[in-house]
């Protein structure tokens, strides 16, 4: 009997305290900075183009095979505005299939993809979660602005920095420039 009363007192004490639950659609709990929402593509402001070169490493390493990518020659590189020889032409992620594992982010050599904070996927169309390049870039931009994202390897991946470095190299020895551009690196996913 005593223990039952004890339990009763414990619950009664909570009648006078603030509730710990949040009323979800009205009230959103803050998400942590490292939160992994759906993957989105990032935008390189220094060249005015996406970071993604369409190298397909993420496509091959994704455990659910939910991505598609196609590359093309980069027109901006020919104009000398970017160091990327290839650029993404079409990209699609089926967010419905994505399991939010973050493997795509880990294998990307170009800092091009990041787990954004998007996580609410309500919609009316069944194919509504197949997001295209434009949408992915939009979500990526939002993420970049809100979180202050920084590329992990700017010397190689940010067009402005990489081009400046290239120029510096070219001035003393013009011959050295050929081996420099990073766009066609051997990809580590090739073995699989």
């Amino acid at each position, binding site marked *: *009997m005593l*223990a*039952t009363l*004890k*339990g009763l007192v*414990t*619950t009664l004490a909570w009648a006078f305290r603030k509730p*710990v639950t949040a009323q979800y659609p009205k009230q959103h709990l803050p*998400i*942590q*900075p*490292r*939160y*992994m929402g759906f993957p989105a593509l990032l935008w390189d402001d220094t060249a005015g183009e996406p970071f993604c070169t369409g190298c397909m490493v993420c496509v091959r*390493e994704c*455990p659910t095979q939910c991505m598609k990518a196609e590359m093309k020659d980069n027109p901006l590189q020919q104009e000398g505005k970017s160091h990327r020889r290839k650029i993404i032409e079409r990209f699609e992620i089926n967010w419905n299939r994505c*399991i*939010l*594992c*973050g*493997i795509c982010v*880990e*294998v990307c050599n170009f800092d091009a993809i990041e*787990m954004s904070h998007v996580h609410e996927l309500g919609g009316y169309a069944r194919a509504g979660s197949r997001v295209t390049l434009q949408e992915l870039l939009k979500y990526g931009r939002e993420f970049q602005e809100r979180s202050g994202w920084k590329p992990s390897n700017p010397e190689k991946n940010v067009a402005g920095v990489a081009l400046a470095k290239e120029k510096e190299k070219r001035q003393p020895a013009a011959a050295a420039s050929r081996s420099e551009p990073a766009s066609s690196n051997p990809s*580590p*996913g090739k*073995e*699989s």
Partner: protein
Amino acid sequence: MTTEKQQETVELLLNMGPQHPATHGVFRMVLWIDGERVVDVEPHIGYLHRGSEKLCEGESYAQIVTLFDRLDYIANFNNELVVCRAAEKLMGVEVPERAQYIRVILCELNRIASHLLFYGTYGLDAGAMTPVLYAFRERERIQNLFEAVSGARMMHNFFRIGGVNEDVPPDFGQRVRRIMGELRRGMEECDRLLSFNEIFLSRTRGIGAIDAETAIDYGLTGPNLRACGVPYDVRKDDPYEVYDRLEFDVPVAEHGDCWDRYWLRVQEMYQSLHIVEQCLEQMPEGPVMAQLRRIARPPKGEVFVHCENPRGDLGVYLVSDGGPKPYRVKVRPPSFCSLMPLKHLMRGCYVADCVVILGSIDIVLGEVDR
């Protein structure tokens, strides 16, 4: 004449599940009952079968970690640990010390989260509606911490072969300490609420008892075995990671009944807090990932690794042919073995006790069916 025939007593066949709130997943039991007594029981499993073991053969080593996340989906970190350790053992990788401590902290917190979930749902099984709310409130603190560390509340994919994905955030130690204080208070509150409640005691004491010898014969491990008085714990008997440097007790009970199994898990939570405390003190600075090639390619060979899951002894048998994908992965799931003595436990009990017994062995169907 006819009325007499209608009144003849026959055994009744009762279907419990697969969609039943008390089976903790999709699990079906066919019960033969005679009045209020259970004559026989037949478990049916496989409703959640996803072929994880087979899927592993088609995925690279980095990808199979995501599959292991989904085996025992209540204790994700513990599952990730065992498959990472299997690959590391095969490759002969030395994991940096800091990474080992991080792993142990996260695994122990996950054990608490898992036991809290057990505590809450077990209350529900026995007819107490309130404890589950308290348990979830406490579990939420741990889940939030996991989100801050790994980016996901469940299915973290945080452990890597050779370490962990990322170092913990700078305020990690502080945060864990705060959470531990809150958890301790919360767990004491939970204790007051349910553990010695008279109704709960009469529902669970002496119900579903199993003796040590039978339990070993059936292959029980973890809390279910320790509740019968066998102090078998992989963390002590075959220490992995840094457990040999940590000081903790292995609680044992003696009767092996439902209440013992419950009480043992409650005590284990306190032990886990104790382990986390020590880890925080001992954790060195340094790298969290071993220097490895980006694509893991263990050499040809086979290895068996087991770890102490919240549910028992989780083993992985891994065969590699030297390629980037495993040749064969076999999982020894503790929940599956816990389900084995079901007939032994349930024969002769009341129908209402079936739920209490099934709840007390704490199975996760994701792991039973794989």
